[in-house]
């Protein structure tokens, strides 16, 4: 147990400016949203001026069992979001990020610089402009199909026939840098002697990865998954690419919230969705933490 350098009062003092911002710009809107989720607040029409308290009606509508799996409704949207999160965050970003970080672990030089720089470029280019380039990339006569044809694969109409795959590919491309950076820092903190010992015993690369790196990385993986799951739930950029279509086939939860909130201006219902999404993320975060700690206990 390390000795604390700051007393409790002093550490609160250091935290004070942050707490003021958190109270004003996080807690206040947070509680407003919870309160608003129990009203029929809208932007236009009579309910804009005098919103009524409607109790749990917004929530009941969201979980209306009769229609909720219908295209464009909450259940359908959640199901699409599950595909999107598993595909682009868990499989795409986390696995690819881990793969890149492992491949370039303890290496310096041009190859690493090229991959890291390009991945980070994809990550930091502003949202507003990135979709245009991707229209050109995924067009039936676009760059992706040109490359596929060069290696003998038939061209496909990505945005039209495979819209979900398209936004998964897009979000993987866009977000891998974060997981890559996180895992490469984590790997850099593992003493090289562990790996050298394994080399002496004659362990295969896969054994080294499974028996040495993976157990040491568990907690970092949990941290990574918590953050990227949350961000993938909230990312709005796929809208620029597909608009949630064709025919609602990519109507993930962030786009659903957008339609309800900013297209139909039903702020009460949009707030209820925001609360539900947060609760889902809270549950997922708890599961990731629980699993990573449990596993840690077993292997230690």
């Amino acid at each position, binding site marked *: 147990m*390390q000795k*604390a*350098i*700051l007393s*409790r009062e002093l550490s*609160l*003092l*250091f*935290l004070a*400016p*942050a*707490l003021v911002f958190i109270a*004003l*710009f*996080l807690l*206040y*809107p*947070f509680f*407003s*949203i919870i309160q*608003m989720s129990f009203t029929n*607040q809208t932007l236009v029409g009579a309910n804009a001026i005098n919103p009524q308290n409607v109790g749990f009606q917004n929530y009941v509508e969201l979980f209306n069992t009769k229609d909720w799996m219908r295209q464009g409704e909450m259940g359908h949207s959640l199901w699409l979001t599950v595909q999107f999160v598993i595909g682009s965050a868990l499989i795409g970003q986390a696995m690819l990020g881990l793969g890149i970080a492992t491949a370039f672990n303890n290496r310096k030089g041009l190859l690493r610089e090229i*991959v890291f*720089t*390009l991945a*980070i*470029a*994809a990550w*930091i*280019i*502003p949202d*507003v*402009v990135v979709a*245009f*380039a*991707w229209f*050109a*990339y995924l*067009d039936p006569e*676009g*760059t*992706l199909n040109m490359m596929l044809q060069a290696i003998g694969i038939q061209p496909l109409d990505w945005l039209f026939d495979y819209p979900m795959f398209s936004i998964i590919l897009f979000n993987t*491309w866009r977000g891998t840098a974060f997981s890559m*950076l*996180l895992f490469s*820092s984590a790997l*850099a903190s593992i003493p090289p002697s562990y790996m050298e010992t394994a080399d002496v015993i004659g362990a295969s690369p896969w054994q080294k990865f499974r028996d040495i790196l993976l157990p040491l990385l568990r*907690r*970092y993986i949990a941290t990574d998954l918590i953050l990227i799951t*949350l961000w993938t739930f*909230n990312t709005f950029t796929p809208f620029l690419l597909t608009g949630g279509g064709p025919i609602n086939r990519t109507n993930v939860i*962030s786009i659903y919230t957008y339609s309800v*909130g*900013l297209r139909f201006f039903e*702020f009460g219902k*949009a*707030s209820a969705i*925001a*609360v539900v999404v947060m609760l889902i993320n809270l549950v997922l*975060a708890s599961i990731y933490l629980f699993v990573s700690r449990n596993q840690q206990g077993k292997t230690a």
Partner: protein
Amino acid sequence: MKSPMQRILLTGFTVILAVFFVTPLLWFVFAPFNPQASLSVTIPQSPSLANFEEVLSNEMAMRGLLQNSVIIGIGTMVGTSLIAALAAYGISRGTLPGRKILTYVLILFSSVVSGTASMVPIFKLIYDLGLIDTHIGVILVMIGGSIPSAIFIMQDFVESVPRSYEEAAMVAGASPLQIFRDVTFPVMRPGVLVVGIWVLVGAWGSFLTPFILLRNIKLMPASVTFFLFYDLESGMPQIRLISAYAVLYTIPVLLLYLLINWRYGFRFFGGIKQ
């Protein structure tokens, strides 16, 4: 340890990754120089700088890019970095109960609040503070939104500063604020810069907050003044101008990243701890 086989595999892997990450961006290389640019990658038949000339001569768009985006970006960067550095130090070096879980909870909060639904309370709050249509209003909201993640990343940098430095300063009789200012902060400065750039990039690209809180076109940042290159009536983009503006808009953040990467290495120092 590195066999030729591994070398070849790694080079192959690098080529595939490089192609994966760079090919979607090819459009930005050609379209801006094509007076007939469309949503496809075509090599311009008569490349010209006409698109750039037209964009550069748009006073409001350039003011958005060179003045407003810079003010909002740097204001958010400086504010967030300082506040998050203080807070991360307070959390890391203190004994607050539940401090490990605190940042996770805050990040969950911030995700709800960054959504569209929160724009109603945020607008009301900024209106009540009398800060509608001001840069400071936008900056405050952006600082509020980025603080949780900034603290989260910053905590690592604080942890990487050896405590012995601070203990030595304490023995010499320095006050906690002096220790932070003269010992810890200088040591973690690269970290503060990395978080700062990360926040700047976020603020640079942020659309919804300035769009909702600003009314005067003279105050709007580039992420919003993009609308100058849309047809207002139909909402259709004027693609050749958008492509040129997009390049001008993206270059500053890319250069900043390359600068920071060259100087310090753009990574998380010390590893993310829970």
